[in-house]
């Protein structure tokens, strides 16, 4: 019970506080790759903590045992003890609902994403094959269009797409910078990064962390790709390429949702690179790592502690504080296959 509460408060706290720390143009702009990793770890951590909280309620603690049969036997006895009281049963049901709900929603939206993406990409790929003209020397497909644009189609059959207007607006160096940027997206599998954020935001929409993640990650992966392209080409060249594409694209009827991102990126490329110090990177890595391992530790601690407790004593309970339930079990007739005092079944001392 305590474990579940701890895990849930961790998950809740993180999902509310983390966006405040990670959003904004502070260190994230200087180390976008690190920021992307941090977001991903936190998302997984919140999910895992919630799932484990449900499990902690539903499944009683059993000590860590090496043998599977021993573990099953201990589980069976603990479960029988747990479900004996209606209070425990209700708690267990809540836990199952929580874990099951989270798992089912995630599973459903994951499958839906996979199928949708497959259908869309296939249709888009077919259209590109028919409508576009492949340019082997560029490694891209050129589509005739009056507005300058460039994008990539990720997946198994990946493509980089340029419009004819973009080709006209960019010189050789700028073109190579744009291609480098798109290649960075493809090689880094940024589509999967976005997919994770999308799926969790749809599956569990009431979590502030997940909603914030979607918008932030979209901006961050662009900066990661910019950094990769700027590494091989020139920062100024990439900035001017960004500007040329922006100017050459048809003016938007309304301000696009991605609005400030473009201007931020160009200004970022125009100013010199200002990477994070090693100390800061280490600090971020340490914090994120701690956040990742905390729920695992909290969830696993009771089982680990129980392994150290001595087993059911023969006869009367000793001075150890055995929970009433455990006392009941010890006094009860020994189930088939168990021998009292044998180390193969141990009940956890203390309350749940």
């Amino acid at each position, binding site marked *: 019970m305590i474990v579940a509460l701890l895990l849930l408060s961790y998950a809740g706290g993180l999902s509310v506080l983390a966006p405040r720390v990670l959003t904004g143009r502070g260190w994230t702009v200087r180390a976008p790759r690190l920021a992307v990793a941090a977001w991903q770890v936190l998302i997984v951590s919140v999910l895992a903590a919630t799932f484990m909280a449900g499990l902690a309620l539903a499944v009683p603690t059993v000590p860590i045992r090496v043998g599977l049969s021993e573990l099953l036997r201990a589980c069976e006895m603990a479960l029988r003890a747990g479900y004996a009281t209606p209070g425990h049963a209700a708690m267990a049901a809540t836990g199952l609902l929580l874990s099951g709900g989270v798992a089912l929603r995630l599973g459903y939206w994951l499958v839906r*994403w996979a199928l949708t993406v497959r259908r869309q990409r*296939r249709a888009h790929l*077919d259209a590109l094959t*028919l*409508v576009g003209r492949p340019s082997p020397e560029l490694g891209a497909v050129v589509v005739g*269009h009056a507005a300058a644009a460039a994008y990539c189609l990720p997946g198994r059959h990946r493509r980089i797409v340029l419009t004819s207007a973009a080709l006209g607006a960019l010189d050789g160096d700028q073109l190579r910078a744009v291609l480098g940027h798109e290649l960075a997206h493809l090689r880094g599998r940024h589509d999967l990064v976005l*997919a994770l954020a999308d799926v969790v935001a749809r599956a569990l929409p009431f979590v502030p962390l997940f909603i914030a993640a979607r918008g932030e990650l979209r901006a961050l992966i662009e900066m990661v790709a910019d950094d990769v392209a700027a590494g091989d080409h020139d920062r100024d060249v990439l900035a001017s390429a960004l500007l040329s594409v922006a100017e050459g694209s048809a003016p938007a009827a309304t301000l696009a949702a991605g609005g400030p991102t473009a*201007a931020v990126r160009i200004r970022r490329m125009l100013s010199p690179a200002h990477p994070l110090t090693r100390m800061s990177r280490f600090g971020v890595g340490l914090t994120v790592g701690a956040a990742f391992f905390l729920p695992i530790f909290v969830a696993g601690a009771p089982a680990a502690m129980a392994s150290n407790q001595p087993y059911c004593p023969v006869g009367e309970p000793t001075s150890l504080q055995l929970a009433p339930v455990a006392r009941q079990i010890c006094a009860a007739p020994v189930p088939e296959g168990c021998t009292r005092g044998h180390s193969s079944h141990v009940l956890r001392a203390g309350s749940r």
Partner: protein
Amino acid sequence: MRRFGELESAVMDRLWARDEPSTVRDVLDELRAHRSIAYTTVMTVMDNLYKKRWLTRQLDGRAYRYRPVASRDQYSAALMHTAFDESGDRAAALVSFLDQMSAEDTEAVRNALRKLRRRTR
């Protein structure tokens, strides 16, 4: 389900270039100038394109006359629209180079770029 390939692309090229309802024989003759290919192959491809709604056809005597449903430019525009559609599942399919910028943004950044160039000169 097979993806479209170079052959489908070539057939559409021919049809867009011809700009008139054409039979399988017409397209075959044009394609044969550059490659050896069987009548049945071209027929299957055009039939498949018709089924996928890229071509429409009308019976003329004993043969079908095919033509593209829309022009290449119209298809290009639709493609771009899908690529930069903000409302749909955009993140699912594509990652674009640049979101649309407002006129003010463009002006501001152009000024910044000009200042930088002056500084580094």
